[in-house]
């Protein structure tokens, strides 16, 4: 098999690549959980370390609402947060193509510094490599943090009855990048943001969060499917409840795309104990980056993800197949 772009889409082709190549040889009880971050026990049995890594290859490097640097910090911070972690420190690896202008590079690094400050963490180790190319830039970041004592947050912790909340409008980042690439003029900004304020507020109010997941590649539909599979439950969400910006809907209409399959970079999906759902929604809405949060549905017994459509029927929401591409037909 030859790798192509669908293997990086976050959909089914990505899962198959991970299963057949990576998990097949590197698999172990931590990696196999396929969480946003691995949770490792320390010698002191009460303490657990969360560890994650992510690489950022976006073009263009600078876009409305952010750049690759902000993305690289927010992505890793949010992956740590998703396990109920206090981020401790990050590392960064820069792979720079020849031809890169240091003014541009510096701008990206300043944006990283700002995002780190906002997230309340720092980069403690870094590496630089230069390769042949045309002025491109790739960034890998890894992060570690402590998992708060007593918290059991994870993809397999979801229970029937849980309420599902998304922390804001769907598809913004993907729509922003596509607009740049397809040269469509609009005001859609990437939502790249560190969600530490929001997650800390929920935890400090003792909200019983069963699972959280950063809504990135593959979009809400793909991520919800992954969570349901890990917890052996099903989910029922309501089309009418899904928060999507009008301009993102417009772009999706033009390009024949579905916001349910488009990624964000600063949105979290929460599965919350039924008694805490209303309180959690209030907290998220008043937290930074949570203004457009919405309750979207419930967890149920069974398998699969279902959507109540605008005509009142129920349909299955599968994971993303292939790359989410503009289509004409």
């Amino acid at each position, binding site marked *: 098999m030859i790798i192509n772009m669908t293997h990086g889409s976050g959909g089914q082709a990505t899962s198959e690549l991970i299963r057949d190549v990576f998990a097949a040889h590197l698999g172990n009880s931590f990696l196999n959980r396929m969480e946003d971050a691995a949770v490792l026990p320390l010698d002191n049995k009460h303490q657990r370390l969360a560890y994650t890594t992510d690489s950022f290859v976006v073009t263009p490097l600078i876009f409305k609402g952010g750049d690759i640097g902000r993305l690289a910090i927010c992505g890793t911070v949010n992956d740590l947060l998703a396990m109920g972690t206090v981020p401790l420190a990050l590392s960064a690896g820069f792979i720079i193509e020849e031809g890169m202008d240091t003014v541009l590079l510096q701008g990206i690094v300043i944006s990283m510094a700002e995002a780190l400050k906002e997230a309340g963490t720092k980069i403690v180790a870094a590496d630089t490599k230069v390769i042949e190319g045309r002025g491109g830039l790739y960034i890998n970041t890894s992060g570690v943090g402590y998992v708060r004592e007593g918290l059991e947050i994870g993809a397999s912790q979801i229970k029937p009855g849980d309420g599902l909340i998304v922390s804001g409008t769907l598809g913004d980042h993907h729509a922003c990048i596509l607009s740049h690439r397809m040269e469509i003029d609009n005001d859609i900004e990437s939502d790249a943001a560190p969600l530490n304020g929001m997650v800390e507020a929920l935890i400090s109010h003792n909200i019983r969060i069963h699972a959280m997941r950063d809504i990135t590649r593959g979009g809400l539909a793909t991520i919800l499917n992954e969570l349901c599979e890990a917890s052996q439950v099903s989910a029922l969400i309501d089309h009418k409840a899904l928060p999507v910006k009008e301009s993102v809907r417009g772009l999706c209409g033009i390009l024949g795309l579905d916001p349910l399959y488009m990624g964000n970079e600063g949105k979290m999906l929460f599965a919350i104990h039924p008694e805490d759902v209303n309180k959690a929604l209030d907290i998220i809405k008043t937290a930074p980056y949570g203004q457009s949060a919405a309750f979207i549905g419930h967890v149920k017994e069974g398998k*699969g993800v279902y959507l109540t459509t605008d005509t009142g029927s129920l349909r299955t929401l599968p994971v993303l197949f292939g790359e989410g591409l503009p289509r004409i037909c």
Partner: protein
Amino acid sequence: MAGIESIIHALKAYKGRTLTLMEVCGTHTSAIMKHGIREHLSPHIRLVSGPGCPVCVTPAAYIDVAVRFALTENHVLVTFGDMMKVPGVNGDLYEARSRGGRIKMIYSPLSLLDLARENPDTTYVMAAVGFETTAPVYAMLIKKAREMSLKNIRLLLAVKTILPAMEAILEAGTVDGFICPGHVSAILGASVYEPLQKRYNKPFTIVGFEGPQLLSAIHDLVQQAERGVSAVHNLYPSVVNHQGNKKAQALMDEVFVPCHAWWRGLGLIKGSGLALKDEYGDFNATQEEIKEDGTLKGGCRCTDVITGKINPNQCPLFGKVCTPTSPQGACMVSSEGACGIWYGTGRTSP
């Protein structure tokens, strides 16, 4: 009252003879899935997807030619996004790109005019697939390119016309009525279906893409079929008129002539394609005839699926060796193909 609630109730309660209704438009297929239309229908109403997804019906050999252009020096293969994942005999456009092929995804073919002017040493080969809605866009591109004396734009033509395919399906005798493609009808006009409607005595309903519109069209076809009447009904007059878009038709006539065309899953259908007229021949990317290659895998029943004879899950390959990540036949190729949709939505009701 003709409220949507009463239509939904009637569609669920329908107990008459089993009707097979076909749409022939990839956007209808997609909208039917998105609005959950099938879930409202009685088991006596079969809703099937015909050969309306231009990506699905494009022969595998065409993809190979497109790949070849992508890998040719000083050439860029230009395409809509949905062609990227269609498998050819030897790989798809993704693989071509991973082998260094130059591929540009666009929304508007006319955006090629600026590109071609700015990069005179690069030849832009447009993967020109689609039906009558997209054909005028290609015709306009060619006319403008000629006006601007641009010599570096070519069309790799596989444009198809839907009426000959609908006629082939009517000949197979499997369909009780058509949901007519909304945007093709905008170009061709509602009157274009009248000869087929009269000859085969089947109902044709033109409609848009919203949930209530689709439900109304299905209800209309059921009502007509139950009463044994047949007519062309236009439920989309905000966009579709009787005679269609005359300017678009004239432009197509100026640039194209009908030709035979090969359909993935259906084979050769006479007069079902559009070729460039001789005076525009220099915009042709290739003279070779791109045939369906007969590489349908053993047991693949795409032809029966496209003509509405069977449901996707009645094909022996479905969901076993034929899945969206390794499609064996035309209908699984695109997420808008009949099998792709059945697979994606958990193959529940027909």
